[in-house]
């Protein structure tokens, strides 16, 4: 059989990194939420915060474990799948990843030990400090890895000699043109994703009439957060897009399915981009919408896809639809958070059951938005792996397609098993809910989940 190694290597990498990013999007936000709860507990002495913190810590443990193991896979896959890429960019990207390990991964992994197992061994302030250390660690991790990724989108601060990138100015490399936007947009995405999960869990409890006090706290905190961050995300995304227009105009053209750069761009609510013919079919559009957003001018012009040969275009449909999904979810988030804030202000938030019912079902929207966003970013960069420096097709390893296909199948099976069990266990932890007794029974527990199970059993026996 004939396998295309480049395609397979891309599929495999896309699969494993999409699997990975699901967990950071949640753990970056959740660790910050844990630290916040801890601070509130220390300040107010109110045990409700402590119960909530301990409850979410158990869920955090499962998600974090899955994030770590899938991340380790990635750090080796750069070499196994993209060895040519490693040679060309190693001088520049290597240190960024190295700093991520030293500044972030050890911090997270070590203080995680205290967060999960130290409750009965350390004073409360140190326990909360550990949660904060983990939260800071995840944010630092995002800083470095996004700097690396942004350099692949908008390389700067380097020079090319013999096709290999050499560093010239580290600050320019780290703070390359798209990095500040990407970092802000992604970090905010992680907080939003977590906010909607917390919102969903709170709504689920209220609907079931369980854990009322905790559920109300969760709802208030989540709505307070998302009502600010969801509109902010629109703003950040808009600025991000303007930056992309400057450095990767063809990516933006693909996002908008804009073919002819000599005419102003319409904003297509729906369309079926025909990549052969270079036109859109079945388009439903807001005339000149894209021009208005991107150039702040009704008649503004921006480059179209037809201005470059087909071999230099990204896969238009993928980018176009992924972008639509992100925008749709972003708009839904704004509406949901604003309406929630309005209900809260009216004082009917906890009684509006239809709203709670919708929100209880919306825990997954942040994850889908994050994945779509990354698909826009990464597929939109094609055919380049490092924009303007190295093409994806030239970046692969000398590994036969059959090996990649075989291991891809292994990954799909392994991650499939791990993912469904993980979701199943997290769901069960949520079904058990926060336990008021757990914290007081100063018993050492080998794993946070087992503690959850115990107390679950206790609660049932009672």
């Amino acid at each position: 059989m004939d396998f295309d190694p480049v395609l397979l290597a891309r599929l495999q990498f896309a699969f494993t990194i999409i699997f990975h990013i699901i967990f950071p999007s949640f753990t970056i936000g959740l660790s910050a939420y844990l630290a916040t709860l801890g601070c509130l507990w220390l300040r107010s002495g109110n045990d409700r915060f402590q119960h909530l913190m301990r409850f979410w810590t158990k869920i955090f443990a499962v998600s974090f474990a899955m994030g770590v193991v899938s991340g380790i896979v990635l750090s080796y896959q750069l070499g196994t799948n993209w060895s040519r890429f490693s040679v060309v960019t190693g001088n520049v990207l290597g240190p960024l990843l190295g700093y991520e390990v030293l500044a972030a991964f050890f911090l997270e992994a070590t203080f995680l030990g205290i967060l999960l197992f130290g409750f009965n061994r350390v004073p409360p302030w140190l326990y909360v400090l550990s949660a904060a250390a983990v939260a800071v660690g995840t944010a630092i991790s995002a800083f470095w890895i996004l700097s690396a990724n942004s350099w692949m989108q908008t390389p700067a601060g380097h020079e090319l000699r013999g096709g290999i990138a050499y560093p010239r100015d580290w600050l320019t490399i780290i703070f390359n043109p798209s990095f500040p936007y990407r970092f802000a947009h992604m970090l905010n995405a992680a907080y939003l994703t977590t906010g909607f999960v917390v919102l969903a869990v709170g709504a689920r409890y209220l609907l079931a009439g369980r854990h009322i006090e905790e559920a109300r706290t969760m709802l208030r905190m989540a709505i307070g957060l998302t009502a600010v961050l969801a509109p902010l995300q629109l703003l950040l995304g808009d600025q991000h897009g303007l930056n992309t227009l400057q450095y990767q105009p063809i990516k933006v053209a693909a996002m908008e399915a804009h073919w002819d750069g000599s005419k102003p761009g319409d904003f297509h609510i729906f369309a079926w981009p025909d990549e052969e013919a270079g036109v859109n079919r079945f388009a439903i559009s807001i005339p000149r919408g894209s021009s208005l957003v991107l150039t702040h001018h009704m008649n503004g012009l921006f480059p179209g896809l037809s201005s470059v040969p087909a071999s230099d275009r990204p896969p238009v449909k993928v980018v176009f639809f992924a972008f639509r999904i992100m925008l749709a979810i972003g708009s839904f988030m704004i509406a949901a958070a604003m309406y929630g804030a309005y209900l809260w202000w009216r004082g009917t938030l906890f009684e509006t059951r239809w709203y709670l019912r919708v929100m209880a079902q919306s825990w997954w929207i942040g994850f889908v938005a994050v994945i779509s966003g990354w698909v826009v970013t990464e597929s939109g960069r094609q055919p380049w792996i490092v924009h303007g420096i190295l093409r994806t097709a030239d970046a692969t390893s000398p590994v036969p397609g059959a090996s990649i296909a075989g291991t891809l199948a292994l990954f799909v099976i392994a991650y499939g098993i791990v993912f469904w069990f993980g979701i199943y266990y997290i769901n069960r932890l949520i079904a058990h809910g926060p336990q008021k007794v757990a914290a007081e029974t100063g018993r050492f527990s080998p794993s946070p989940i087992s503690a959850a199970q115990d107390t679950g059993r206790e609660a049932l026996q009672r």
Partner: protein
Amino acid sequence: MEWYLPLIWAAVIGTAVVMYVIMDGFDLGIGILFPTARNESERDQMTRSIAPYWDGNETWLVLGGAGLFVAFPKAYAVIMPALYLPVIVMLIALVFRGVAFEFRHVSYSKTGWNIGFFVSSTVATVAQGVVLGGLIQGISVRDGAFSGGPFDWATPFAFACGLSLVAGYALLGATWLTMKTEGPVAERARGQAKMLLVAVLVFMALVSLWTPLKQPRIAERWFSLPNFYFLWPVPFVTALIAYYAWRWIEAGREVPPFLATIALFLLGFLGLVISNFPYLVPPSLTVWDTAATPASQIFMLLGTLLLLPIVLGYIGFVYWLFRGKVREGESYH
């Protein structure tokens, strides 16, 4: 500078690898010994003795991989494709090991994840040994890129290395349990440690003789004069430490056997370095051939000098915080 930097970096990465092998070695070893536990409460005691650390321990593997990418990107780009299959198998096994560790506590029936924990720990260990063996026996390189086939690594020698590592990690696990647990678990671990020590010595001897027989350049390194005058203490000290390790286990000592096992691992590593230096990708690419540009190595070295002591500081703190023994039945039922 151009000459020293790669050496410094080789030392940094060597340290990361040694740290990983020792620290995740006892975690994986406990997985390998898992089927010998009698009941669920013993298994809980065993996992509890490593629960707060295993995540941090595994991070050394990331440092090793990232370190190679930082300092020797050209070696990273040759080794990973050459050992593609064992590396991926190792990674997938580590995924299962990590989640089995967490999941076995939640599922109502633990048997599945107990088996998963054992199998994945063992597979990951064998794969690591195979990676090591595959590296020692040499990788074919043309124009700075891997030029062999997908199964070049699959030799009896590589699998022998895999089995040696199983014995070695199991010994680390057994001596860790002797040190960190009480009751029947510690008792049984002591008995296992004796058998495993013998197995480790046999494997060490086997690999140490097989390597020079297979690789003339390594035979030359050890047995030519005057090298031999300087190198004979390495096997001698190994034998001495093994003898004391045996005595300490017999005498029921708790901490020294673990330390002696670490010493054996360090000596084994020293042997490897002696055999292969200055090659990073034997038999063709040296540390200098594959080094990143000095600017990158220096930039990262500054960070390492600043951050690594802090990292070691808080890792030490966590080990100190969870010091003491895990008692029998001190589990969650």
